[in-house]
């Protein structure tokens, strides 16, 4: 008798514990779903990291809503942002900016000529870090004319000046009060920009919240709060979207869509979400390291053969589910100055095989793999292990290459490791993407000469000296027609040498609640204009 009573009491207690434990867990998603309808919580694979806009560790979409630049790059050209207007001197060396007078930093500091000067000078004092952006090598001085007028003096005329000033970093402005000992290169004391959102809270590797800036010069944004939640894997993002824990996801700054194409279809079918896609923003490609003397990738014929074995139609149709168009040139035709006639190399394994044959890479009997003077035709291809599509693409290309006797060894790595390989030249082939409409073609091409970008990729080709000279000329030429001709020369050289093997034209895909309106895109894949979005009432 006693035992049965004891037993039933125990069972009762256990049940109570389980039930009470369940209750709050059930309530939570509802709460979150309610707040989620008013705010945006987006999923990000990586933490927003160091938000210092003069360094490169931070997440660009997050920096894009906190900080602003002098001018903005739009589809219709350069438009005013923090500068209301500007004049360029006839010799193209002096830019005078007339600043907006109603702008304040998030900490209340006034945004004026002095702040602009301090920021630009802080960037210039750390110029090694900014070598990829050629403007940093051209700026000679930054002078305050009056409280709201500032003058930028260049060493020589540089045509992409305004385009480079419009970029997400480094020429954006942080409150001078946040400087550490007058510098920003060793870290900053706070993250106060002038942008539509203010960084309110940041829990590293968990989330970051941004509140609408009530004093924003262009009117307070409609959506009161934006949260960036760290969700490293695509499946968790998908579940979180389903549950309402996050309600927004977009292609990240590495071009990786963590959520699978078909999973997005399911979300849309549920009626709660919509998908908005930008026009093509960049080109996803395989970069060949021409400077690797020891590797077959050094040879033009091998690179061209690889170009012919990439089955872009299948990648676009089956792997990307039709969301990305096949790319046949480094820059698509809608990129400025890039609409030039180049030979289109479509999928043609036979052509690839005959190219290899005539270059002396012959098949060894039995194994089917090719070699030349005892050197096997084997190359390494590195892909980003966080991208759900790159590995499949890599395996498809690998199998097509194997069919003509070219062996590719695949390695999946973290995106930071890929970036590190690119800047140290420790690779044969790697997946990459051009930098987006605002940067293409001028900045990407300037990147050919920068060690952090594509110097190793380009310096092994015979025309390299000529290529670099032409690129230098492009940047200083003021004549539109000459520049077009020089661009044609550069793009033809890298196309003929098959340095950058294009795959598809990437775009930004946004998965957002179906009642969210005003989803637009900028000219860069690194930012999203959250301030223009609003929920349907």
């Amino acid at each position, binding site marked *: 008798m006693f035992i049965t009573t004891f037993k039933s009491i125990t069972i009762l207690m256990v049940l109570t514990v389980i039930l009470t434990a369940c209750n709050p867990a059930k309530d939570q998603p509802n709460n979150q779903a309610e707040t989620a309808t008013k705010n945006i919580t987006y999923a990000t694979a990586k933490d927003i990291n160091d938000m210092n806009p003069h360094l490169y560790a931070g997440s660009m979409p997050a920096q894009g809503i906190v900080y602003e630049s002098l001018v903005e790059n739009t589809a219709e050209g350069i438009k005013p942002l923090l500068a209301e207007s500007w004049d360029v001197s006839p010799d193209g060396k002096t830019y005078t900016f007339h600043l907006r007078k109603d702008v304040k930093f998030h900490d209340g500091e006034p945004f004026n000529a002095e702040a602009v000067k301090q920021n630009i000078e802080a960037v210039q004092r750390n110029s090694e870090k900014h070598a990829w952006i050629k403007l940093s090598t051209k700026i000679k001085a930054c002078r305050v004319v009056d409280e709201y007028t500032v003058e930028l003096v260049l060493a020589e005329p540089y045509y992409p000046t305004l385009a480079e000033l419009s970029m997400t970093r480094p020429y954006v402005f942080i409150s001078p009060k946040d400087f550490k000992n007058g510098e920003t290169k060793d870290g900053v004391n706070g993250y106060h920009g002038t942008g539509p959102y203010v960084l309110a809270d940041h829990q590293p590797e968990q989330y970051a919240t941004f509140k609408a800036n009530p004093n924003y010069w262009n009117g307070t944004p409609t959506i009161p709060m934006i949260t960036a939640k760290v969700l490293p894997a695509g499946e968790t993002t998908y579940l979180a979207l389903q549950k309402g824990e996050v309600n927004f996801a977009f292609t990240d700054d590495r071009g990786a869509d963590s959520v699978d194409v078909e999973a997005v279809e*399911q979300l849309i079918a549920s009626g709660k979400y919509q998908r908005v896609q930008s026009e093509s923003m960049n080109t996803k490609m395989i970069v060949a390291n021409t400077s690797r003397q020891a590797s077959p990738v050094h040879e033009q014929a091998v690179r061209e053969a690889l170009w012919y074995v990439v089955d872009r139609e*299948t990648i676009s149709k089956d792997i990307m589910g039709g969301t990305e168009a096949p790319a046949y040139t480094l820059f698509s035709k809608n990129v400025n100055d890039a609409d030039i006639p180049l030979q289109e190399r479509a999928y043609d394994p036979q052509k690839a095989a005959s190219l290899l044959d005539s270059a002396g890479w012959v098949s060894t009997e039995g194994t089917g793999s090719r070699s030349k003077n005892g050197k096997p035709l084997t190359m390494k291809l590195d892909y980003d292990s966080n991208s*759900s599509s790159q590995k499949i693409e890599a395996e498809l290309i*690998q199998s097509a290459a194997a069919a003509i006797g070219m062996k590719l*060894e*695949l390695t*999946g790595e973290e995106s930071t490791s890929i970036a590190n390989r690119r800047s140290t030249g420790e690779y044969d082939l790697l997946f990459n993407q051009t930098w987006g409409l605002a940067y293409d073609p001028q900045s990407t091409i300037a990147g050919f000469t920068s060690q952090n970008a594509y110097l190793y990729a380009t310096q092994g080709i015979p025309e390299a000296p000529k290529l670099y000279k032409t690129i230098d000329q492009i940047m200083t030429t003021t004549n539109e027609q000459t520049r077009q001709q020089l661009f044609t020369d550069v793009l033809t050289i890298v196309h003929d040498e098959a340095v950058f093997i294009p795959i598809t034209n990437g775009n930004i895909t946004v998965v957002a609640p179906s009642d969210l309106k005003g989803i637009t895109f900028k000219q860069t894949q690194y930012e999203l204009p959250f301030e223009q979005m609003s929920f349907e009432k």
Partner: protein
Amino acid sequence: MNIWSNLRHDRIGMLSLVTVIAVIVIGICAPIIAPHDPLTVNMSLRYNGSTWSYWLGNDQLGRCILSRLIYGIRPSILLVLWILLISIGIGTALGFIAGYFKSKVDAWIMRICDIMLSFPGYVMTLAIVGILGVGLENIVIAFILTKWAWFARVIRTSVMQYTELDYIRFAKASGISNWHIIRRHVVPVTFADLTVIASSSIGSMILQISGFSFLGLGIQAPHAEWGMMLNEAREVMFTRPEMMLAPGIAIIIMVSAFNFLADALQVALDPRLHQSASTYTSSKKWQVRI
């Protein structure tokens, strides 16, 4: 003691043994048995269901899942057997030296073991892969480096227990060489313990090697491995959950088979357990968790 006749009466044990042997044979004869080339890509068959020519369907690149599963036996099972053999080899040699000669040698070897065992196995393996780089060979090296110490320790204890026995002391007193004593009188009796720890640790090793491949640290594409197949299926977990079935079930079957076999072997090797098998089948002498 007749192991075979003991084992024969254990139905689960026999079933496990047959499964294990069958899988090993299939793995060795993979090129003959597999219906297709595991690397042949055919995008028109992407994510196809099972058909007569592709029994288990096709994966994200239209490759035959059954063939990949069969070729996957090699890194998933056969390689684990090799690693086990090598680490047991090292562990046994050092364990015997320590357990038999004792004194200073024992102290040295055991302190090294202590150092190796004081790191959590996964962390140690990750560190070694971090230093040497990603790849199956490095995982193998890391596994051997982290596993041998455990075997050395267990075997030393087992050896020590026997060297205290009278017949060994008698053999020593009668001037028989150490090598001869170890070979004739110690190895046969410790063999039972060896078999049991080997068979029971293999299950966890299969899981670990699949785990590392799942994380992308082990075998590299396009070669098939069960853990990597699971990882590929993970990406389409919510749209095509059936992709997880084949590699998942294969791992479950193999790990269970090895564990049941270990239990059965233990009972077969230890008459005391056998007699009370009806009441204590689940009690394990060597609960191995590395």
